[in-house]
């Protein structure tokens, strides 16, 4: 075959003879307007028939969807109309999913804000009857016990995950995976009773210790750390491990210097999410740590206060008049939610800051 360069064939494309078929499209604002009109009509219908806000929203969503579909079908054709119908259904499903979340947040914020003051954060319940008092001791107790639980479960959880991904084979791996899966499903009260029974062996019945609570939380936290860290470690490409082996790097150094640094963002996120999962646990702390009115920050010495248990006792044994204690319970719940949100936010920040960048 000759290698001479032939001129490229000239293809004559007549301009303007072939065009893509144009279709009539509804404008974005008009579909949104139609849906809104349907919602309003539904509201009016509900008002006329004297039904509540839930029915009104239901009528409105159905009417809006039907309006959008019918108009779109007549203007744009069947395919686009189906697209819009599904969009409407998805938006409605999203709205329904958001209802409990927003409702809950609104309730907790509106009721908890009443006592969200300086006193709540700088006084304990020592000698408080009636107004005043706060959750200072409970906030710090939660921080101490959760941190202790993290100290126990993060090394165990991460090392287990590393074993499962990097070393585990055969029966032992299958057995560990099965046990971790089972542990994920343990009811939290069982974890609490286990820790209580364990410490009762050494300290006698009726023992209440912060560290027992941390052990109970660890039982709940370890499987979460293992499962999520395992998924994260699996995402590290095998090519990176092989690149490291090919440089004559031993396996353990490959894990410490290549696998873990590559997945550090994901591992941080895994730990934070596991913490967020256990920070609001009530039942295990109720049986292992109990409650106290004063500030006790030593987890090896007697009862401590924690936010969930504090909220529980303020609500169930409010004293008289009950209003003040119930307000404190709501504020404790609000602080707890804020704590969980802060942990989630920290998880995201960790994920963003430590992710390997490909900046040129």
């Amino acid at each position, binding site marked *: 075959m000759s290698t001479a360069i032939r001129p490229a064939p000239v293809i004559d494309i007549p301009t303007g003879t072939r065009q893509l078929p144009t279709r009539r499209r509804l404008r974005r604002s008009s579909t949104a307007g139609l849906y809104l009109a349907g919602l309003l009509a539904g509201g009016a219908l509900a008002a006329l028939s004297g039904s509540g806000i839930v029915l009104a929203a239901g009528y409105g969503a159905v009417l809006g969807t039907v309006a959008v579909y019918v108009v779109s079908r007549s203007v744009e054709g069947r395919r686009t109309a189906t697209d819009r119908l599904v969009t409407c259904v998805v938006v409605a499903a999203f709205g329904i999913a958001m209802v409990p979340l927003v409702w809950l947040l609104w309730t907790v914020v509106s009721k908890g804000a009443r006592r969200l003051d300086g006193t709540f954060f700088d006084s304990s319940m020592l000698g408080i009857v009636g107004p005043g008092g706060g959750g200072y001791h409970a906030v710090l107790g939660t921080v101490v016990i959760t941190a202790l639980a993290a100290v126990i479960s993060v090394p165990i959880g991460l090392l287990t995950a590393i074993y499962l991904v990097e070393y585990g084979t055969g029966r032992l791996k299958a057995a560990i995976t099965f046990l971790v899966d089972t542990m994920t499903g343990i009811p939290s009260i069982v974890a609490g009773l286990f820790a209580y029974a364990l410490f009762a062996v050494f300290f006698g019945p009726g023992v209440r210790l912060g560290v027992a609570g941390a052990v109970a939380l660890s039982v709940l936290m370890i499987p979460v750390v293992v499962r999520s860290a395992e998924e994260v470690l699996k995402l590290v*490409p095998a090519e990176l491990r*092989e*690149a*490291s082996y090919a440089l004559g790097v031993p396996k353990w150094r490959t894990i410490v210097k*290549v696998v873990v*640094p590559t997945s550090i963002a994901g591992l941080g996120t895994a730990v934070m999410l596991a913490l967020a999962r256990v920070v609001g646990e009530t039942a295990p702390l109720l049986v292992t740590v109990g409650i106290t009115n004063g500030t006790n920050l030593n987890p090896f010495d007697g009862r401590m206060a924690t936010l969930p248990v504090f909220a529980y006792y303020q609500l169930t044994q409010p004293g008289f008049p009950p209003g003040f204690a119930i307000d404190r319970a709501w504020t404790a719940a609000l602080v707890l939610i804020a704590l969980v949100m802060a942990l989630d936010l920290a998880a995201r920040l960790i994920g963003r800051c430590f992710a390997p960048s*490909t*900046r*040129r």
Partner: protein
Amino acid sequence: MAPRIDVTDLDLYYGSFLAVQGVTLSIEPRSITALIGPSGCGKSTFLRALNRLHEVVPGARVEGKVVLEGSSGQVVDLYGSDVDPVDVRRRIGMVFQRPNPFPTMSVYDNVAAGLRLNGARMNRSALDDLVERSLRAANLWTEVKDRLDRPGGGLSGGQQQRLCIARAIAVEPEVLLMDEPCSALDPISTLAIEDLMTELKEHFTIVIVTHNMQQAARVSESTGFFNLAGPGRPGHLVEINPTGKIFSNPDNRATEDYVSGRFG
């Protein structure tokens, strides 16, 4: 320094599946040996057996003998019971099909990775020298010397592959294995890497797996042709001969069919 590699009756398994059967060949020092053959015939598996990377795959095992014969006459059986695979891999470096720089490390750290990860202590200026020397040897220095602290993953594909070559030669191996190093690269980057291989063979024994027969013809001194009898059957070495002979007058009919494009 560059050793000769003698392979005798090598069988490679994945679990109970025999992937490559009965390979016997010699790889000459300070030359490029190319391995060609259809997909799935076990070229890459064979290559990975040479630096004991094959056994990293769960269930994979090796039977047979691979002997490294240094220029001073010292002989090492790579699969001997007293040989640590980690030591083997320090002597036999590898470049992979897809560029795989460490994403958490800068260009500089990627080149220094072989030493750093092995825990070697080195003063800064010696390390700087080594990094520059390796990057120059990989024809990458002029392109990256102003951005040594940027992530290695931010380079172009061809640059990343040359970075991986720099990383491999920075630990000063004696043999360099290359598993289709140009298959993900454009012709210009391919040319750069082929030129580089020709320079590197002054110091290293190079074995390259390639699907590109022109590439084998361009760069290699000898060429081995792998084939497999059928799906599910093990791959085997059909013949290994000087490259000129393989492409003009091979001993085996199957080789001639393959290099002339009649099958595969």
